[in-house]
């Protein structure tokens, strides 16, 4: 071994550095003891009954688009509905949709825990949609009447 000076301080420093730098690798050992990170289940199928009943082929846009950009879309919808009173969305296939989180999206994606929270929790995202639209209500039926009531008033 080569000679080194102020060993204790240097090793302490290097130890702290290495501990911090490798934190992403070892944190699992201490923080989550039992399981590794599991991807949100990509195979959960939305209940498409609503879509079918209304004659739609499926979701308003394709899966990749929705995964990456749904928040932009919803934000856009909100602005258009609330500020410009434009309530109809026409998708790339020419289908017409009512611009409504609860009235359209959540009809099929009816389980918030599965469809919203699993990914948001995984990525550490806290959307403020649910500040108004859902508060402690997990059942979409209850929710619908409340949300529609709010929108009716407007």
């Amino acid at each position, binding site marked *: 071994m*080569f000679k080194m*000076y102020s060993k204790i301080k240097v090793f302490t*420093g*290097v130890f702290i550095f290495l501990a911090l*730098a490798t934190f992403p*690798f070892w944190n699992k050992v201490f923080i989550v003891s039992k399981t590794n990170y599991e991807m949100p289940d990509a195979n959960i199928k939305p209940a498409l009954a609503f879509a079918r009943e209304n004659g739609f082929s499926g979701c308003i846009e394709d899966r990749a688009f929705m995964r*990456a950009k749904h928040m932009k879309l919803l934000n856009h919808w909100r602005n258009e509905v609330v500020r410009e009173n434009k309530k109809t969305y026409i998708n790339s296939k020419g289908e017409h949709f009512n611009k409504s989180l609860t009235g359209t999206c959540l009809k099929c994606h009816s389980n918030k825990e599965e469809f919203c929270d699993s990914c948001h*929790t995984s*990525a550490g995202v*806290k959307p403020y949609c649910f500040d108004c639209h859902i508060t402690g209500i997990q059942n979409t039926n209850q929710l619908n009447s409340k949300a529609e009531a709010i929108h009716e008033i407007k």
Partner: protein
Amino acid sequence: MKILFALITVLILSLAAFTGVEYLHMEYVFGIVIPYAAFIIFIAGFTAKIFYWAKSPVPFNITTTAGQQKSLKWIKSDHFENPSGSFGVIGRMFMEIFFFRSLFRNTKAGLVKSSKSESFKPGYASDKSLWLGGLMFHWSFLYILIRHLRFFLYPIPSAIVTLEKFDSMFQIGLPIFYLTDAILLLSVTFLFLRRVFIPQVKYISLIADFIPLFLILAIAFSGIMMRYVSRVDVIGVKELVMSLTSFSPALPEKVSSVFYVHFFLVSSLFMYFPFSKLMHMGGVFFSPTRNMTGDSRRIRHVNPWNYSVKVHSYEEYEDEFREAMKGAGLPLDKE
């Protein structure tokens, strides 16, 4: 020239990653192989550099004293600017590392025309811009780094969620614009501009001073792009990152090439780090002028290589000057 060289280097790096993923489908290389290699190079290189420094001793106590020494009891000494014990040294280092104490002192010198004659004299104005720019840059960088832990951890600690919430408190845009992104961009741009527009700083700058600036700018830019402009699938990114940190690398479904550009630039920064001036991060702890006590007359500092030297002894001196000393009535050891 220097600036162009650095800029082109960073552009080539960005393009390489983009082309590699977009057209050559080398996700495996840019998403798995290079990040692993970069990380290993970073920690190994960093540690090696620290050991390289530590192999040399600090032979003398060379504290720079910027405040009153601890001497007579009734004179107030300055604990932090001239530490007389480890408490003071820790305080001094803390101020230096977290608040850039020395840079805070910064002034700007210039010539002032004398009102009474044709001569000039130097004048000094306080100049905190470098201090502020540097401080904002480093703090926002650290903040962003910690915020990124949301991609590395599961479950995400509430502290990181809080940090993120705080960072987006103004709720501008969607996804909400992070304040630290703005601060980082502004401060790096400022650091770049002062390198270009202050003639002295421009004159002393090397290519190696522009490369990290452009690299960090490009990293910030690509990060902002994929968050605000061309969205990437965050879940896919997290899937990749988590697979890397659990040593079972797996590529996610298609994630935008912008992400790979970002990831590759970050990897490049990590690889470049140990071999560059960026090592000031470790070096600041090693600076003997700041991390030692000022009490070198009270406590003896030991030099491990203190070899003996040729001296001119009193005996030799007396032999040489005996007659003169006798004549001057000086006492002698040997008559």
